[in-house]
């Protein structure tokens, strides 16, 4: 039965469809910042590891830890346990079969296997999308492949092992050592990228198998500080960042700048906080994992920044790409080329999107400029001296603005963001952006203001946001977590520091109900 007389229908107004989140395709993982991990998984892992070692069952302990590592990873997506096991077993088998005279085929197979897996799961759909765009379809279509969490990290770890094996710098380890090295849960899904020579000697050392209260205490402190950075600093900022990026069209130049700086803060606290937690957990296990962040926003040049930001990734590319290309030994032009190659690859490593490629190239340009400046000065060329504080500010702003590209869903949106940044205008959106920053701790005050003076409510949140950014800035220019956690051990003290840390931990636990982004889980 037809009820309608006319067939032409007009949409009653357009609807803006929001870009899908990068996290839409990924299931809820077992996060460090969760009650399940803090109160069940971690105590169980520690108890089992040290307990079994205490009862002189080292192989049992290694099997137990491997089981815990796989349980941790399996919470993300059980099917991808097969992937990590296949990757692990494939590389281990190659290592077992390696002979010096088979170096070249070993390298081809090893590098091909690892990069092939990485390419398929991370870049295949991106390639298909671009081919489809170039050839107007042409039979190319994405396969809808789900990105396995941490694939970039555990692939690079194994790649470094394979390359070191071929170079004669790595032996064929016992399976349980190797398997635990690759799957060790603190660094499994978001780094740091640990080298075999950093991990395995510690792992097999007998003294490391005995519970050490000093290491445990240091690990707890590092973990809690990392948890605080993630949960108390990064997560609240994420709501403002998300708010701003969902409304790019409404930004003016000032709010665009503030948005990019806010994201720079969020990203640092999120990623470095996670790494602090990883290092803290490692320390609880008597394992010292490599530092990944050492106050990068105090850097006076982009070259210095990349020696302090995601240090283990820089280390990987320097060791396995920059040096084999010739490093700094073949003249200025070759240095610049090598640097651009490294950062092009680094950009791609971060994700299958042209925004990451562009971001990587921007980093490369920055490092090239600062590197050339430094080398020219060393050669005696007279160049203007930039005061360190100004250099730090310039470096930070350059990096923060480049992160505007990193955070954008696509180049189109990144272009809009920069258009707003570079077009001097003031619409007052800054107040709206700042007032999107909300904390439950001020809810009562907000309700009182709503009742008595509702027009001032946005100013409450904006003031809170300004305070938060000021506090974050103070933290960034102060001592970093590594420095804070190293210097106060060994003597009796009446300092209230541990009680305050305990209360900080309590504050983090009651904040766990607020779900935030784990940004580096996409890599």
């Amino acid at each position, binding site marked *: 039965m037809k009820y*309608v007389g006319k067939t032409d229908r007009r949409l009653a107004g357009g609807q803006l469809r929001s870009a899908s989140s990068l996290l839409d395709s990924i299931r809820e993982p077992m996060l460090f910042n969760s009650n399940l991990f803090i109160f069940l998984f971690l105590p169980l892992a520690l108890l089992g590891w040290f307990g079994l070692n205490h009862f002189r069952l080292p192989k049992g302990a290694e099997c137990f830890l491997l089981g815990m590592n796989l349980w941790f990873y399996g919470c993300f997506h059980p099917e991808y346990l097969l992937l990590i096991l296949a990757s692990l077993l494939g590389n281990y088998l190659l290592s077992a079969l390696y002979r010096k005279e088979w170096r070249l085929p070993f390298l081809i197979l090893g590098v091909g296997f690892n990069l092939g897996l990485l390419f398929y799961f991370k870049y295949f759909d991106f390639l298909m999308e671009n081919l489809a765009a170039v050839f107007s379809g042409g039979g190319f279509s994405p396969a809808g492949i789900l990105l396995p969490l941490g694939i970039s990290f555990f692939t690079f770890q194994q790649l470094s092992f394979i390359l070191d094996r071929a170079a004669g710098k790595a032996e064929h380890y016992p399976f349980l050592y190797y398997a635990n090295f690759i799957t060790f849960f603190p660094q499994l899904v978001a780094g740091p990228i640990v080298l075999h020579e950093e991990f395995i000697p510690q792992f097999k050392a007998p003294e490391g198998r005995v519970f050490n209260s000093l290491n445990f205490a240091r690990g707890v402190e590092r973990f809690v500080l990392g948890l605080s950075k993630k949960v108390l600093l990064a997560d609240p900022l994420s709501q403002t960042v998300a708010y701003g990026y969902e409304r790019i069209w409404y930004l003016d130049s000032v709010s665009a700048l503030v948005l990019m700086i806010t994201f720079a803060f969020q990203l640092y606290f999120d990623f470095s906080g996670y790494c602090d937690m990883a290092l803290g957990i490692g320390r609880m296990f008597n394992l010292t994992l490599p530092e990944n962040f050492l106050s990068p926003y105090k850097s006076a040049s982009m070259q210095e920044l990349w020696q302090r930001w995601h240090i283990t990734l820089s280390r990987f590319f320097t060791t396995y790409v920059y040096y084999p290309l010739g490093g700094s030994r073949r003249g200025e032009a070759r240095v610049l080329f090598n640097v651009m190659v490294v950062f092009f690859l680094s950009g791609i490593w971060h994700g299958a999107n042209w925004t990451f490629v562009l971001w990587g190239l921007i980093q490369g340009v920055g490092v090239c400029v600062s590197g050339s400046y430094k080398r020219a000065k060393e050669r005696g060329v007279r160049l203007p001296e930039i005061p360190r504080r100004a250099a730090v500010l310039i470096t930070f702003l350059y990096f923060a603005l480049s992160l505007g590209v990193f955070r954008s869903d696509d180049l189109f949106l990144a272009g809009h963001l920069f258009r707003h940044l570079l077009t001097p205008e003031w619409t007052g959106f800054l107040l709206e952006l700042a007032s999107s920053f909300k904390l*439950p701790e001020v809810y009562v005050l907000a309700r009182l203001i709503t009742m008595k003076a509702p027009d001032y409510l946005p100013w409450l949140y904006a003031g809170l946001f300004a305070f938060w950014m000021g506090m974050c800035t103070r933290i960034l220019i102060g001592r970093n977590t590594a420095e804070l956690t190293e210097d106060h051990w060994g*003597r009796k003290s009446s300092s209230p520091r541990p009680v305050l840390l305990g209360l900080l931990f309590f504050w983090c636990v009651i904040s766990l109900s607020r779900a935030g982004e784990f940004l580096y889980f996409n890599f």
Partner: protein
Amino acid sequence: MEPGQFLKKFFFGAFAGLFAAALLVVVMDPFYHYHAPIPPLKKVLKDKEYQCIGSLRNFDYDGVLAGSSMAENFNDRWFEKQGLTMIKAIRASGTTADLNYYLEEAFASRQRNGQKLKAVYYNVDTAALFADRETTFAATGQPMYLYNANPFDDVEYLWNKDVIFEKIPVEVAESLMGDYDEGSSYNWAQWKTFSKEQMLKAWMPPESVKADRGEEADGELLEENLRILKNLVSAHPDTEFVFYFPPYSILWWGEACYEGNVERNLHGKERVQEELLAFPNVRMYDLQWDESCILNLDNYMDTLHFSDIVTREVYDTITGDRPCDPQGTPYALRLEGDADRSDGDADAGDPSRASEPAQSPRESKEKMRAVLERNLPRLEEITGQG
């Protein structure tokens, strides 16, 4: 600092805070997960996803109003006239499986307390008749720690910043400082605007109309949901079930037409009505054909959510104070052959209700079909968007 000293002080600080937080939440219990509010605290019900299940388990009541957002704006105190202490069981989607879960929890808690559930007023959303037969709580991100029997995941509630800094202060403020009406549980209408202009903002006719899918579309889902309802009714013969079909606007039916679901909906309603009316403890009302309501777009904020005035009219209808529309057509339903019965001895519940005028599900369906044939071709005239 020595590590042993450090760890002792750290754990002292941590667990002191966690213990204090847990104690506060257990005592104040804004989600009523453990107990009803301790006087002078009131039953402040504003978050149905969090509070509904706890209130059903821990409050004292003998009547339940079950439904979707369509049922939230009733005032529980209205039902005191029927001698009932009413509570709401609200699920945003109103799916049959979810509401059935809530109602079974209500029955179980009454049994534990040695009490009886005298009446269930049930808002039947047409879409819910074709919804998934499985409950959707977990899939829609509900706080399952409040639903399941696992005591360990209660930490999500006990150590929750939103609960401590928002929900508890709201509970205290509404109980002690304001004039919060406990009957207005989950009410949202007070913040909404009901007008034709507002309603048309939500009206987006598509560019093309799908062919009607026929009355057998989604038949399997219909039968599954009907089975759930029949099991619910038959399992509790001493409880009066009052089912009602709320008056969606004519534009809701317009959307159904565009999606090709009109015949499916008409058939589904008739089927459910006929099957459930066979039970002696069931009464039923259909308000969906009432042109005096559904054509007046000022009654709505979107294609289906109606104002407080209409809510009150629905209440009057399902409690017997408004038996017919202005033209004298009855809202009550009875099976064919029972439509003229006046002896009333087959009804559980108020015997005086047996004499109220009624029509059969078939008559109601034909009435609805006539309304649609008259009005759907002139939607542009009704909306003024021609």
